[in-house]
C-alpha cells in the first residue's frame, strides 16, 4: 500500500487533472444551474440534511443559496485556471461540497456528484496548480516529479475504486442471487422508466422495449457487478487493465443512459477516469499540435512564457 501510494508524478499530470475536473465541474454547474437555483424554493418542511449538512432542518434564505451558487461557479473558474490556488483550491472543493450537499438535502440523494466532489477534495487540497496555472507563471524553474504530485492522484484512483466496489458489493449484499440471476434488474429498469412516464419526465423507449426480453437481464446483472467490483484491477500497474476497466465502466454508464435515461455525466465525460492515465501527455500533444497549426516560433517572448507555463514543452521551431 505504502509503495502504491508513494509514487512520484509530474506536476503537469496533477495540473491536467485540475484543469479537466475543474472545467467539467464548472460546465456541470452551469448546465444544471436551474436545478441548483430552484433548490432555494423547495418547501421548508422537506428539509432533511445529509452528509456534511446532516444537522440541517430549516432551509437557508434564497439569497444565501443563490450567492453561494454564484460563488461556487466563480471559485470553480479560479480553480480551473489556477488563480490564488492556495485559497481557491480548498475553497472551491469545500464550497462545491456544501452547495451540492445542500441541493440534496431535501429528501432524496441524486448520485451524479459523489465522485466529482471527492476528486475535487483531493485536487483542491494538493499542489495541483504548480504547473499549467496563472500562479505558476511566476515560477522560474519547472517543478520536478515528486510524490507530492503523485499522492493526490493515487487518492483519486483509490476513491474511484472504492465508490465502484461499494456499489458492486451493495448489489450482492442487498439483492443476493436474485440480483445476479433473477428479475431484479429487469424490474428496476421497468419501474424506473414507468415512474418517469407517470411523473411526466423523459424516459427511455429502448429500456421499455428491452424489458420484454427477460433473458437479457441476468447476464447484464452479472456484467454490471463484474465491472463494478472489477474496478480493483486499476490498482495494478497494468495500463491495459486500466484501459479495459475504464472503457468497460464507461460502456456500463452508456447502457444505463440508454436503458433508464439516467445520466452520470462525470463518468460519461470520461473525466472521472482521467486519473488512471498519463493525461498530461495528451494535453502536451494538443498544445504541440496547436503550435504547429499556428506556426509559432521559439524565440518570441510569449513562447518563452508559454513554455514556462506549460511544463516546459518546447515550442515548435518554424
Amino acid at each position, binding site marked *: *500500500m*505504502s509503495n502504491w*501510494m*508513494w509514487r512520484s508524478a509530474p506536476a503537469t499530470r496533477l495540473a491536467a487533472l485540475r484543469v479537466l475536473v475543474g472545467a467539467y465541474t464548472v460546465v456541470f454547474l452551469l448546465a444544471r444551474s436551474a*436545478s441548483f437555483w*430552484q*433548490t432555494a*424554493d*423547495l*418547501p421548508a418542511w*422537506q428539509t432533511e440534511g*445529509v*452528509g456534511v449538512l446532516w444537522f440541517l432542518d430549516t432551509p437557508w434564505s434564497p439569497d444565501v443559496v443563490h450567492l453561494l451558487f454564484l460563488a461556487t461557479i466563480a471559485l470553480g473558474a479560479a480553480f480551473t485556471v489556477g488563480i490564488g490556488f492556495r485559497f481557491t483550491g480548498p475553497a472551491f472543493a469545500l464550497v462545491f461540497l456544501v452547495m451540492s*450537499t445542500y441541493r*440534496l438535502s*431535501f*429528501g*432524496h*440523494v*441524486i*448520485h451524479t*456528484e*459523489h*465522485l466529482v*466532489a*471527492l476528486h475535487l477534495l483531493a485536487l483542491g487540497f494538493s499542489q495541483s496548480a504548480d504547473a499549467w496555472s496563472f500562479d505558476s507563471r511566476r515560477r522560474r524553474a519547472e517543478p520536478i516529479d*515528486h*510524490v*507530492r504530485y503523485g*499522492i493526490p492522484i493515487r*487518492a483519486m484512483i*483509490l476513491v474511484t475504486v*472504492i465508490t465502484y*466496489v*461499494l*456499489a458492486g*458489493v*451493495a*448489489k450482492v*449484499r*442487498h*439483492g443476493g442471487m436474485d*440480483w445476479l440471476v433473477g428479475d*431484479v434488474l*429487469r*424490474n*428496476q429498469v*421497468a*419501474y424506473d*422508466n*414507468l*415512474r*418517469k412516464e*407517470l*411523473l*411526466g*419526465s423523459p424516459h427511455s423507449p429502448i429500456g421499455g*422495449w428491452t*424489458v*420484454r426480453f427477460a433473458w437479457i437481464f441476468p447476464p447484464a446483472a452479472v456484467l454490471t457487478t463484474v465491472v463494478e467490483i472489477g474496478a480493483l484491477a486499476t490498482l495494478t500497474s497494468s495500463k491495459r487493465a486500466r484501459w479495459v476497466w475504464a472503457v468497460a465502466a464507461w460502456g456500463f454508464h452508456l447502457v444505463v443512459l440508454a436503458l433508464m435515461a439516467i445520466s452520470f455525466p462525470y463518468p460519461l465525460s470520461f473525466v472521472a477516469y482521467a486519473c488512471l492515465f498519463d493525461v498530461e501527455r495528451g494535453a502536451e500533444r494538443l498544445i504541440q499540435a496547436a503550435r504547429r497549426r499556428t506556426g509559432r516560433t521559439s524565440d518570441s517572448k510569449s513562447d518563452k512564457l508559454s513554455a514556462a507555463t506549460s511544463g516546459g514543452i518546447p515550442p515548435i521551431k518554424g
Partner: protein
Amino acid sequence: MARIFEDDRTRRVIVRLVGLVIVVVIGIVPVALDRDSYPLSTYPMFSSRRTAIEPVHTAVVATPDGTIRRLSPTQISGNDEVIIAAQLVYRSIRHDGGEVLCSDIASRLPASLAGADVEIVTERYDAIEWYEGNKSPVSRVVHTSCRVSGTGS
C-alpha cells in the same frame, strides 16, 4: 514539508494514515451505516430487491371530462429533477396527506386548466406488463384533490 516527504519512516506513517483515512471514511463508514448519503453512499436504491409492482407517488390533473393529464417534475415540485419531484409527493403524503402540495401545484397551473382538479395519488402498476401493453393500474389511491384556480402561469 518537503523534508517530511523525504524522511523514509515518516513517509510510510503518513502514507498509511492517508490510506487508512480514505478507506475508513469512503469505504467502511458507508458500509457500516448502510444508507444513502453524500458524498458517501452504498447506493442502496440500485441494489434493493425491486419487484415488478411498486408504488409510484405522483400528482396529476383530472379534467372535468375524466381525462388524466400527467404533470412535469417542474409543475409538481418547482424543480426539474424527477427524483426530487417523486420524493416531494411521497413526503407530502406522509406529512399532511398531500394537501399543502396539492394547493401549491394548483396555484402554479395555468388558466387553461381552470376548473380541473389536481390529484395527489399513489398508483401501482405491474411495470413489466405496462411495457407489454397492459396499462391498467393494479391499484390507485387518491390521497387528496383540489381545484385549479387558473391564476398561475
